[in-house]
């Protein structure tokens, strides 16, 4: 796999009130990004348990993004 074709699998943990809404807005504005990014909604980034991050890596994530 070359660096040009590598699409990292990224999990984004997003706060319901801000980052998740921002991801929705990106949709309304039709801003394109790779399909390999998936959002998991949290009620607040305070709910992010470090276990979730570790589990994501364990399952095969290349990157984890926390936004809130």
């Amino acid at each position, binding site marked *: 796999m070359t660096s040009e074709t590598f699409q990292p*699998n990224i*999990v984004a943990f997003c706060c*319901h*009130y*801000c980052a*998740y*809404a921002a*991801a*929705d*807005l*990106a*949709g*309304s*504005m*039709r*801003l*394109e*990004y*790779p*399909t390999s990014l*998936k*959002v*998991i*909604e*949290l*009620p*607040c980034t*305070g*709910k*992010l*348990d*470090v*276990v*979730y991050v570790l*589990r*994501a890596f364990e*399952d*095969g*994530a290349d990157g984890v993004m926390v936004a809130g």
Partner: protein
Amino acid sequence: MRVELVGGDKQPVGAVMVVGGGIAGMQASLDLADQGFKVYLVEAKSAIGGKMAQLDKTFPTNDCAMCTISPKLVETGSHPNIEILTNTEVREITGQAGDFSVHLRRAPRYVDTSRCVACGDCSNVCPVIIPDVFNEGLAPRHAVYKLYPQAVPNAYAIEKRGIAPCRDACPAGQRAQGYIALIREGRWQDALRVIKMDNPFPGICGRICNHRCETACNRGLVDEAINIRALKRFVTDKVYEQPRQPVSAALRTQPQRVAIIGAGPCGLTAAQDLALAGYAVTVFEAMPVPGGMLRLGVPEYRLPTEIIEREVQDIIDLGVDLRLNHRINNMDEVFEQGFDAVLVAVGAHEGVRLPIPGAGLDGVLVNTHFLRDVRLGKYSDGAQGDAELGHNVLVLGGGNVAIDCARSAVRLGREVQMACLEGWGQMPAHEWEIQAAQAEGIALHPGFTFERILDDGNGRVAGVECQRVASFSFDERGRLHVEKVPDSTLVIPCDTVIFSVGQRAGLAFIPGDANVGLTDRQMIAVNPNTLATSRPGVFAAGDCISGTAFVIEAVDRGHTAARSILRYLQGEALEPAPKPELPVVRLSPREVEERLRDGEIHRSGRVPLPELPVEQRINSFAEVEGGYDEQSAQAEAARCLACGICSECMSCVFACGREAINHDEAERFEEVRVGALILAPGYQVYNAHLSEEYGLGRYPNVVTALQYERLLSASGPTGGHVKRPSDDRSPKRIAFLQCVGSRDQSHDYCSSVCCMYAAKEAIMTVEHARAEARDGNGAADVHCQVFFMDTRAYSKGYEEYYRRAENKYGVQYTRCRLSDIKEDPQTKNLQVRYAAPEAGADGMIEQEFDLVVLSVGMEIAEPVKQLGRTLGVQLDDYGFCHTTLFDPLQTSRPGVYVAGPFREPKDIPETVVEASGAAANAARLLAPARYTLANVQEYPPEKDVTGEATRIGVFVCHCGSNIGGYLDVPGVAEYARSLPGVAHAEDNLYTCSQDTIAHIIDQVKTLGLNRVVVASCTPLTHEPLFQDAIRQAGLNPHLFEMANIRNQCSWVHSSDWQGGTEKAKSLVRMAVARAARLEALQIREVPVNNTALVIGGGAAGMVAALTLAGQGFPVHIIEREAELGGNLRRLHYFVPSNGDSGRLSPQEYLADLEQRVNQHPLVTTHLSTELIDSAGFKGNFISTLVCQGQVSTVKHGATLIATGGVEYKGREYAYGQDSRILTQLEFEALLAASQSALQGLKSVAMIQCVGPAEKYCSRLCCTTALKNALKLKELNPQTDVSIIYRDIRTYGFKERVYTEARRAGMRFIRYDFDRKPQVILPDGEGALAIRVWDLGLNRELELKPDLLVLSTPIVPAKGAKELASRLKLPIDMDGFFLEAHVKLRPVDFAVDGVFMAGMAHYPKFLDETIAQAQAAASRAASILSQEMMLANARVAHVDALKCVGCLTCVRLCPYDVPRISLDFTGVGNILGAAYIEPAICHGCGSCASECPAQAIQLLHYTDVQLLNKVDALFEVDVQSAFIPLESVEDRRAGQL
């Protein structure tokens, strides 16, 4: 003002109307709706949000404005007790406080908000482009639009200004603006569709229409009208060069049959309409070809036969039965053939032969026959010897048909002349036709009568004898009277005469007894509205009722006749119902000028049309006029001014999959009954175009601050990268000009917010530049310079913020008012010149900037002033709503309250405060009617699904084409079916449509589903809808999960079908994995104690107590002093204010307030009492009080902190060392107490910003100093007053006090903290001396005043800090209580159930304190008005058996909710475990993720639910990844 309700004991109406959907309107609505009132929120725009939604960031926290307002928007939009009425205005109110009738005008939105899913398909196809008002004109927008991406209601709207004049002028109502816009976009097919909606003959009209549209066109005001006819022709040329698409026959749905006599444009139009309406139509035509006059009257060179044939064929192919060569001779015959209705549209084919001698000679022809014969090929080219048509042709007549005859004869190789009655300039033919005829060599003889036709001796024409006309006229019966010039006989030699002096219908087939009446002029008589003749079932239209007219009129009559026949056949009244019409848009020259100035329009004449040269055209019947090519057509189309805004091109209607658009929606007038009104209509920014010296509009790089907000905003036109309008470059030098439209000759007030927003915009500019430099996209060196007079940083955190702008962000502040700006025409940079002490010889500095931002002030918009007048509330000279000091939110009309800048310019927190305060006023008026009109939703009993096998239903939405157009929706549904636990999966066109919702409910019941997943748009807007649906099906709403495959999939991966489909499958898999572990959660109800506890008995405390007690809530006031009154007791005067004379003095007001408190049966006052402890949570507090050693407890549902502040007394400026040095309050007392003490007082000096005020602005001191100085001047006019100040911060209307003080001759000396004034005390009896460096004069002054008054600030009350720690409430750096959110929760604490008001929050004036006290009361009432409080179900839950009591959660919780409770036993049976009260847990989950013992789970977001989602994302076997976890409900049951 206490208002007595109508009729005493009559119950008021439990509804409130809030006018204005900005932040104030939303807050007032939410407060009232939460308290059990029905709220109608009226907004003039298509969405709520107001000005705040347009802002980028908010000061002083730099929070994103949209992020902070967005939750309020959603809450307002989804509140069951709030009905949002957009596009609505108040027209009138009747009735009185407690029972008003409000008359509303609801302008059409044209989009049904209940159907619209905000997909934007309509906007994508809308061809109309106008400046986007939300983006302050910096970006384009379509006529169908959503105000902004996050708009609530989340739906589109269509803007119509009216009917474009082109459409209005067209008899057939052609939507010229619409097809022109589509041509501009290169959408030829769509353009043709628009034309054909109103006119089946676009190719024909594109050639021969008399285009009245162009005469009416507003573009004519700019330069030349749009060449509309040529554009229409262009479209048909473009489309017709493609092979003709077959037209499918219309479906016959009606039993009746219609006969149409005449296959001309009128008859065929009606045939088309009736066929499309489902009727069988037969057209009888006497001639061998269809088309009527089009085919037989208009020469080929103007209208090619192929065009006619094509357009006629489109109608015939609808299934119309065309019978050619079929002359109808008898009307009865038609009915005998079984037709139910007949349309006579026989045209006017009979040419008129004047009854003059010689009219019967050979070689005398009539126009209609001649033209018909030419078209039917009777005279082939060069057939000069043809017996009938000689060589020298004279056409008699001056109309268009005469010219057609003449030009046709030219093309047959004849010598042609024309003669007519009318003189030059009077001929009825179009000017361009006359010119074309002359160019083709036709000789014209205007102004002659035709006396007789001369015989050549062989019975053939030899010439026409004419006489010159002096004048002519027609009498009332249409008869001609001519006055001839004597002896002016002229003979025009010719061998052929063609009469072209009029036409009439051939009505031979109508027998006299057919019951169809005729007119005097041998036309069929009809009712002009219905086109019905005197015989039932017979209609007539076209030239046979009107005489010759243009084809477009025939089309119009054809449509009208068809509609009339439809009504006749359906048994309806024949007269059409009157339809409300939009106004015709006529642009004023002024508007045109403004649009030219603003660069919206540029002058450019018509794009020229190619034309066949004369030498080519006279030899053939080839078309004379050429058409546009694509490029020139688009250029011509781009000149359109889009007058009507929406052109009704119907593109949106075709695009909308939800059938949400209705262009025929009309305005509605409604009447609503409410008990009270709250006016929160907001402000408009000053129209800075009026300050021409700044060049807004003329210079592209001068923008208003609101435009600059949009340039900064990430969702703005430049995507958050500041670019200057002229060249899209990042500006590096930006000037901010303050007080544009404030503090000037036409505004005697300060707009209160501009200083701070300029500081914010400057800070954000620097932040943006720094961020771009970090990303390597630009340099960080950006220079911001603010030109200002005084910096009004007067509120909490503002002073610090302003200094941060200067010190940390390098914003340069220059104190001057610029008088003009000049533009460098090359670079478009802007030059300013100003006087400065540091400048060189001429004292002037010249600077150049890339961009200038005008800090525009606040004004009241004209419609708002009109609203005020309509409601009969008193307004001031500027249109602001007048209120009084003691009742700041009460308008002059009882029952009508006001909030926000409509009352006085103000910023967001104060606006929010007033909104809640106004709500409290309305609630007090209407308290007895609480819950009488509020909505209650009923649901069936909930089904217990515990222990059931998982049966998940998955519903995948196409969202029209919004999802389905970009990924494989049926494939996703198919995939969902394969997932474990899924019992059913399906795809729906629109899952949120009413029918699908009903279907989901049905499926849940019939298939026994116990979990539901919807894969569609975003849960932020749609989760409540689907949860409601499953509740209706008997499921707990928490058994629902959404997969966001639109906003976070199809919309962002629109170019990747495969990838988007795979991601959608992943998102559905994740949702299903979580859904499998979802559990039913119970919403707990907690009883509420409806008593309030108010801490502090000053003005704030007393007003809050009375506001609550007035609504029926018991109140306890505790006051540590022995009497009520607080700081109010020390005030003697108020700031003078116009229009408020005769009001009470501070002490009279205090006495009144005290009396009302003491007499109120629901208020209990505890003097000399302190609070020593408070426990519990919102709705259920227990507080311990101590009064002179006596301890008592009070149970209450809400707590209000109103502990006030005190005047600071420190050692600065030698205070306390000399009796001549006083504080302002001491000086006020002196002014009040002894006028004798003032005798002989020659001079007084005041120093502003003393002690702590060097750190924060105490807000009151400037105004207080001016108030006392003015009082002194009033009492002792000869005393000199010097005010030593830094900035005079008389914000809002207080500016008037400053103006008055300057007029009264006060001396203002400006100093800086770098060089503070020095107070020199005399050694003995001598005078006080003050040395100060005057920055205005730039030199040191020495003053020797008799008195020195120090403007010391308000500091927090003693004991505030201790109280804060007892109640676990936060305080800020300066010791004032800290609100939950500086902008939007200004009286709330982060801890629920505790509120604040007055100077405990920050120094403020009495009216501000009163408003804030009312606001705090309103917020408290939101709790106290509930009998039971619904606890959030998604809360943290502690498994006590795992808790080690480590206190992590207790310390971590931002809301201070967890406690160690002795009611529980933790790990190892040790007494005490964490307890989280569900009623007050906010559900953020911080405790759950940090708990080291993993004893806490956040319900609905449990670890297993979230980890399932992560595992499912990576397709890790979800089943094996399950953490065994017993049901939360079981654990709870076991534990409690």
